[in-house]
């Protein structure tokens, strides 16, 4: 609990920085190609308090935040930022969680498999594949997947998002998971090789335990530790939505809102998403700490 409270100053700094950086950027939320009538512009600015001095706007925003109010969106008239996040987040969360789960399962097993064949053919192939997975950006992989599975083979829809259509999820989840799979595989391989060299693994082997049990019961937990610390911030990033993936597959998630808000100078929406993202990172790091304690008995004593 103390750790959660300690993160409040960090969040405040984050919010303040984001607030002023957003304002430094040229242009405003209501700049259009055709300029508005001065009276209308003044009326809009007054309605959104943009006519006040910046520090006053800042205090007003922080005051609202303290009451849990993220303010109205500047771009989506009639919607509050909270409503927009509530709309986009479940979609990003679904895709993000599924792809993290996939990445953990596939990447983790591939890493273990490679570690057990260190410097042999199987190891080299897994590591080469994962190097490719890390190097290929998702904006290359995703269109290629669409080309193959949607355009050529007609197996899957090229994009879109309808409630309950699981086929829609398949490609985005896979595209989002691929780099994570590759990264986790490398991480797991390195950490597993390290653990397999430790004395307690030698003891486990000296006890005559079969290799499967040596790996699963004795080596897996310690080998998971580095992956856990990687997972915290990564999971927060992935479940708040990938800008690229959501754009390519036409998914109405949080990531897409974020980019559009930044382009539109939708001040409140950008800030809202930044705060939400910051909160999630704090939360996930906290969860990772809890998991550390659950896995490693030496951490539990606090």
């Amino acid at each position, binding site marked *: 609990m103390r750790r959660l409270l300690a993160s409040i100053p960090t969040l405040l700094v984050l919010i303040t920085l984001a607030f002023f950086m957003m304002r430094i950027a040229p242009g405003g939320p209501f700049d259009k190609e055709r300029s508005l009538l001065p009276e209308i512009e003044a009326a809009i600015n007054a309605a959104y308090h943009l006519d006040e001095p910046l520090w006053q706007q800042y205090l007003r925003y922080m005051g609202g935040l303290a009451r849990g109010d993220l303010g109205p969106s500047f771009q989506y008239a009639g919607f509050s930022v909270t409503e927009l996040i509530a709309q986009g987040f479940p979609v990003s969360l679904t895709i993000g969680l599924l792809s993290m789960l996939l990445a953990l399962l596939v990447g983790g097993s591939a890493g273990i498999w490679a570690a057990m064949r260190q410097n042999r053919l199987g190891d080299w192939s897994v590591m080469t594949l994962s190097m490719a997975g890390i190097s290929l950006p998702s904006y290359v992989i995703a269109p290629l997947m669409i080309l193959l599975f949607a355009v050529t083979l007609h197996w899957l829809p090229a994009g879109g998002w309808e409630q309950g259509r699981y086929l829609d999820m398949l490609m985005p989840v896979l595209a989002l998971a691929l780099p994570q799979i590759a990264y986790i595989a490398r991480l797991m391989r390195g950490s597993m090789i390290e653990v397999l060299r430790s004395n307690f693994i030698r003891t486990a082997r000296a006890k005559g335990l*079969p290799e499967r049990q040596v790996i699963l019961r004795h080596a897996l937990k310690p080998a998971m530790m580095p992956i856990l610390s990687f997972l915290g911030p990564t999971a927060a990033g992935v479940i708040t939505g990938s800008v690229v993936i959501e754009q390519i597959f036409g998914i109405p998630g949080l990531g897409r809102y974020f980019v559009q808000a930044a382009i539109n100078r939708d001040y409140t929406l950008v800030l809202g998403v930044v705060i939400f993202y910051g909160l999630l990172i704090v939360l996930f790091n906290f969860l990772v700490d809890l998991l550390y304690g659950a896995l490693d008995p030496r951490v539990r004593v606090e």
Partner: protein
Amino acid sequence: MALLEVDNLEISFRTPEGELRAVNGLSLEVGAGEALGVVGESGSGKSQTAMAIMGLLARNATVRGRIRFDGQDLLGLKPAQMNRIRGAQIGMVFQDPMTSLNPYLTVGTQMAEVLVQHRGMNQVAGLAESARMLEAVRIPDAARRLSQYPHELSGGMRQRVMIAMTLLCRPRLLIADEPTTALDVTVQAQILELLGELRREFGVAVMLITHDLGIVGELCERTLVMYAGQLMESGPTAQLLSRPGHPYTRGLLDSRPALDSPLDVPLAAIPGTPPDLLRLPPGCPFQPRCPQAFEACSRRPAVVERPGGVLRACHAG
């Protein structure tokens, strides 16, 4: 037929610098219920010999020769067959009790799994038997210890747990590789005493690996002195300690500090360093450091039987 017969064992490792020859034609025997001390400096190949017996050598190792346990050739066994012997018939205790137990699992889990694996017991029966074994190694409050993690135990306590763990399946041979080196002096004595008692209680043969000649005297009837992966001298411990025949054995004995040795006299040390195992000389490996070396020592001496059950590899006699 002895319980353990090692015959002309050779162990080498492929390294980037070349072939490292850790053990070079070593033969030894351990009879049922007998205790053999294997003494040598670091790098003398004593630990690698133990690892070869356990089938736990690193992957870049090559083994030649023969290791027979209870008449069975261990080097020819498949991993699954070896797993039925390891931990069940041959147990091994390692040097560093601080890192040899899994920090992520309770003592009970780590002990009971041995019985589940080799005896087909269920978890409950395994834990009960483990508690009994903890009592046998004089750990008080055994039931509570089972639910503890290694970091909650002292070094001596952990080594007792290790010993108890290896004894669970009543092995016929216990290999102890420097079991007391990482421990306090007082704890060292307790662990040695315990090993002696358990040996009688369980009738288990012991192969005690150490660099400390003082330790073998307390536990082992027979001692084997190794140097550069070769046998230098072996025989009844009492005889080796009182009348060492090999210059190396003598050097080891002389470089041992005694409690009553005067403080102003510096400790005797064997001059020089052990040979480079990447480039072993063809002759007696101890020749460069030997005070008695002569021309013949540039050929490798044969192991010759002497009166009193002593084996010695030395041209000087």
